[in-house]
């Protein structure tokens, strides 16, 4: 109460709040408006459309797969970046942030460049029976590419929040590096990992430009939204968008709750 009072009487606080309002409006109004425009009937009709639901399920499934892959592949790297010094560390930190600035179609193009039959690696993949173009494998690869920075940066911050001294203390008590990681570091950074998976999955759900290059089919929700927009116009794309966002939020809430109970179980 008193803190609020103080903020109220102070000119800079008021001024800053005034300046912040347009930002909040810019971020919320379009989404609110978009959710408001479709009628309830339209929303329910869309729900019954099997193709829409399949596309949304694909989007959520592929994105969550990317999130879980980021957990497996990104956790060791996050730990090394948070704890060790080695030559080239700055460079690797720069590489981690690269996907943010690469235009999304370029991400798709780059991954196709590598997977193409002209390239030895592409031929190796083809010989192994791995197809990138137009397959779930390709989509998940693309989503992992764009989502990894979110996972790695979140979990790196998590590892950094655990004092190295706790790990040292554990080792002086006789626990090796593995036991220390399992009994000290992991329980203290578990929440960050779940948050990292959520961030990576969220970023993956949003992806469109790279997917549309690598795989128009199997159709994911953003591609379907785009297709409906160009083919039928705004009001046919809105309900799909609303359902995609609603179901993603549901997924994230569920993940969060799981992580809470997991943390409580762990002691």
């Amino acid at each position, binding site marked *: 109460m008193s803190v609020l009072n103080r903020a109220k009487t102070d000119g800079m606080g008021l001024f800053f709040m005034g300046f912040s309002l347009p930002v909040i409006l810019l971020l919320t109004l379009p989404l609110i408006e978009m959710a408001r425009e479709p009628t309830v009937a339209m929303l329910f009709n869309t729900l019954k459309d099997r193709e829409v639901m399949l596309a949304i399920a694909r989007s959520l499934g592929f994105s969550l797969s990317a999130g879980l892959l980021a957990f497996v592949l990104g956790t060791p790297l996050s730990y090394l970046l948070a704890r060790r010094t080695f030559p080239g560390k700055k460079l690797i930190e720069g590489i981690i942030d690269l996907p943010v600035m690469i235009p999304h179609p370029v991400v798709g193009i780059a991954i196709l460049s590598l997977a193409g039959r002209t390239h030895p690696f592409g031929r190796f993949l083809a010989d192994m029976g791995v197809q990138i173009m137009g397959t779930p494998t390709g989509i998940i690869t693309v989503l992992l590419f764009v989502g990894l920075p979110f996972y790695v940066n979140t979990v790196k911050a998590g590892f950094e929040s655990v004092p190295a*001294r706790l790990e*040292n*203390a554990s080792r002086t008590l006789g626990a090796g590096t593995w036991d220390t990681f399992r009994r000290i570091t992991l329980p203290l950074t578990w929440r960050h990992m779940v948050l990292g998976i959520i961030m990576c999955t969220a970023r993956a759900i949003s992806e469109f430009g790279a997917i549309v290059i690598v795989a128009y089919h199997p159709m994911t929700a953003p591609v379907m939204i785009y297709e409906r927009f160009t083919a039928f116009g705004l009001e046919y794309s809105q309900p799909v968008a609303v359902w995609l966002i609603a179901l993603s939020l549901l997924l994230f809430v569920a993940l969060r709750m799981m992580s809470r109970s997991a943390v409580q179980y762990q002691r």
Partner: protein
Amino acid sequence: MIQPGLIELENISLTLPGFALENINLTIRENDFFAVIGPTGSGKSLLLEGMLGLMPFTSGRLLFNGTDMDRVPVEKRGLAIVYQDFALFPHLDVAGNILYGTRYHGISRDEAQNRLEHLSDILGLSRILDRRPHNLSGGEKQRTALARALILNPSVLLLDEPLSALDPVFHGEAKELLKRIHREMDMTIVMVSHNFDDVIYLADRGAVIHQGRICQTGDINILFEKPCDLFTARFVGMANLMPVKVGKGRVTVEGSDVSLRTANQPAFPFGYMGIRPEDIVPEPEGDVPVGSEPVGNRLRGTITGIDNHGMFIRVGLDSGGLQFEAVWPRRYIRQYNLSHGSGIRVYVSPEAVHVFREKLDPVPGCQDKAPLS
């Protein structure tokens, strides 16, 4: 399980960007309470990290009971440490913290439980075993960290500034506890500290470290009473430091007529004199040990200041144009009618007049040797 706790450091160096430990030689004997003393930034905590194996030494050998530790990883060295900030595991309760290391030391579940009960009894933790660290007071945290280390029966216990994170209220208790642990349990304790008062209470032997080098090492009372250079002298609370010419059984303060008898005949012609402030006593009291008269130093001075430090007072004296500083019990104000500007006669025993060099050649210098004075 219990091993002797002999530690030898041979020509240890540890170079970091901007700082280095250089040429450290130390022998810490079994069951020593050994103190590594130095100001902030002197490298004393770095030395601990090196001994633990958390920081690799650049050169030199570290031996525990004669075994070279170079390739022994942290978790196999058998050193326990209590950190300044205690480093308790926040996700485990007090019991979980204390029991943490037992499974790595071949201690059975029952045995661990027995030791837990015994230690929490001794350390007064029995009623808080299920609390998390963030709910503990500073003293409780420290005792938990101690129990976590002691439950493993380590042959060596390292203490990193064990008292500086505690409120003055817990300070005294903690000091006594550490002393008791050393007395009752069979282990070598190495303590790092910047507080000489704590050190002299706790430790038997010690080393003074300054800018990555060891200035002096040996019996704690000798460090205290016979510091071998000016830095150590200041650090252990020696006062009345003045440059002197050395004569036979006497020193003469440079640029003055003041000449004092000393029982500490040095082998060099110029140096520094130092007298602990509590060793300058008012004359009537100085009379008490009769027979010391012929060799004692008697000075006549004027009081230039009386500062109240609580338990004691710090008195400034002008004698022969020189400023001396004495520390006396507070009741002397009334007893000797002390007041600003009044005259007083004081007595300094020849044993209390110490002489040392300004600076020592650091290598090989006085490392682990008798002091020079």
